[in-house]
C-alpha cells in the first residue's frame, strides 16, 4: 500500500498473514487484502510432495516468506547442519523473498525443549549466535532476519539486557531484524522496562519485518506475566508501537500478523490487518510531517 504526504515521498509498506492450514481457504479467498504470506518452514521440512507443490502454487500468486522455529540460533552450541540443509532445500524450492528465525535456544544437553527459549544473555551466546548466523548464511545462501523472542523468565546468568544483547549479535552478524512488537510488549511488561525506549535503541535501518500477535495473562507465586500465545487479538498497545515504528523507520516495512489457534472468522483477522495499515499510515504521516518541517 502507498502512503502519501503533502510532498512527493511515498513508502510502500506491506501487511500480511501467517499461513496456517486452518486459515488456508480464508487466505486464498482474500489475497487482494493480504500483501504477503509467511509460511512456517519447519511445517514443510518433511511435508508430502503435494503440500510443497501447493506452496509453490501459493508463491506464484503472492509474495511468500519463510519463518523458521527450530534452528536454535542463539546458543553457544553450533546449530545442527541437517536443519540448515533442510532450510536451504526449502528456500531453493520456494525462493522466498526472505527467511527468518528466532534469537532463541531450543535444545541443550540432548533435551529438546519444544519451543523458543531465551538463552542467558552473555558474550558466549552473542558470539555463538553470530557464528551460527554465519553458518546459516553459508549453507542457506542468505542470512535470516532474526527475531526477538518473548520470555516468561528473566534468563538466569545474563550479563546484558535484551536490547544490548540483540544489538551485540547484530553488530557481529550482517543480518536484518524481524521485530516482534508483541514480544517486545510482553517482555517490557513482564520485566519492567520502557518499550518506547527499547524501540528508540533498535537499529531502525536494520529492521526488515515486523510481527504482530496477541497474548494473555498468566500467574504463579502471586506474580502476573503476559504470555505471547498467538491465540488472542492484537492489543491496542501493539498497534501504537507499530505507529511509533512507522514514524521513524525510513524504508518500507513488511508487517505479518501471527495467529496460531482459536481462529476467528477470516474477516476478524483481515480487520486486524486493516488496523495495522491504519497504524502504519499514522506513523508515516508523522514521519513526513517531521521531514517537511525540518526541510522548511
Amino acid at each position: 500500500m502507498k502512503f502519501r504526504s503533502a510532498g512527493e515521498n511515498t513508502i510502500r509498506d506491506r501487511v500480511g498473514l501467517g499461513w496456517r492450514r486452518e486459515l488456508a481457504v480464508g487466505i486464498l479467498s482474500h489475497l487482494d487484502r493480504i500483501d504477503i504470506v509467511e509460511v512456517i518452514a519447519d511445517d514443510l521440512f518433511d511435508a508430502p510432495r503435494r503440500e510443497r507443490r501447493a506452496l509453490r502454487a501459493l508463491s506464484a500468486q503472492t509474495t511468500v516468506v519463510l519463518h523458521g522455529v527450530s534452528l536454535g540460533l542463539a546458543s553457544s552450541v553450533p546449530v545442527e547442519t541437517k536443519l540448515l540443509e533442510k532450510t536451504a532445500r526449502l528456500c531453493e524450492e520456494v525462493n522466498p523473498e526472505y527467511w527468518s528465525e528466532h534469537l532463541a535456544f531450543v535444545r541443550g544437553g540432548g533435551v529438546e525443549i519444544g519451543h523458543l527459549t531465551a538463552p542467558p544473555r552473555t558474550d558466549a551466546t552473542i558470539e555463538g549466535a553470530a557464528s551460527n548466523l554465519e553458518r546459516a548464511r553459508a549453507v542457506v545462501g542468505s542470512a535470516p532476519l532474526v527475531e526477538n523472542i518473548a520470555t516468561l523468565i528473566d534468563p538466569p546468568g545474563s550479563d546484558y539486557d535484551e536490547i544490548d544483547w540483540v544489538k551485540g549479535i547484530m553488530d557481529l552478524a550482517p543480518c536484518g531484524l524481524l521485530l516482534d512488537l508483541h514480544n517486545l510488549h510482553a517482555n517490557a511488561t513482564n520485566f519492567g522496562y520502557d518499550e518506547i525506549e527499547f524501540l528508540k535503541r533498535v537499529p531502525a535501518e536494520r529492521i526488515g519485518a515486523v510481527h504482530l500477535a496477541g497474548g494473555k495473562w498468566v500467574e504463579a507465586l502471586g506474580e502476573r506475566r503476559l504470555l505471547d500465545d498467538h491465540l488472542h487479538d492484537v492489543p491496542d498497545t501493539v498497534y501504537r508501537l507499530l505507529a511509533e515504528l512507522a514514524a521513524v523507520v525510513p524504508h518500507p516495512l513488511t508487517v505479518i500478523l501471527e495467529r496460531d489457534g482459536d481462529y476467528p472468522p477470516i474477516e476478524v483477522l483481515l480487520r486486524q490487518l486493516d488496523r495495522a495499515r491504519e497504524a502504519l499510515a499514522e506513523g508515516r504521516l508523522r514521519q513526513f510531517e517531521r521531514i517537511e518541517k525540518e526541510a522548511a
Partner: protein
Amino acid sequence: MSAARLEAFLAKIYVEEDSRERFLLDPRGEAAKAGLNEREIAALEKIDRAGLILTARSLQKKRRRLFGKKPKG
C-alpha cells in the same frame, strides 16, 4: 564449555519436572552437580522462580502438542 553446560542445565529444569523440583529444593547443590561455575551457580540461586514455573507450564502444553502425551526428553 560452561556456557553450553548452563544451556543444558536450563533445558533440563525447564522441561523435566523431577529435575526442576530437585533444583528448587537445592539450587546450589544441583547446579554444582551439573559442573557449573561459581558465577552461574550464584545466578541460579537468584533465579526468577515465578518465571521458571510459568515457563515450565507453558512448555509442558506446547510439548504435549508437539510430542504427544509423553514428552520426549
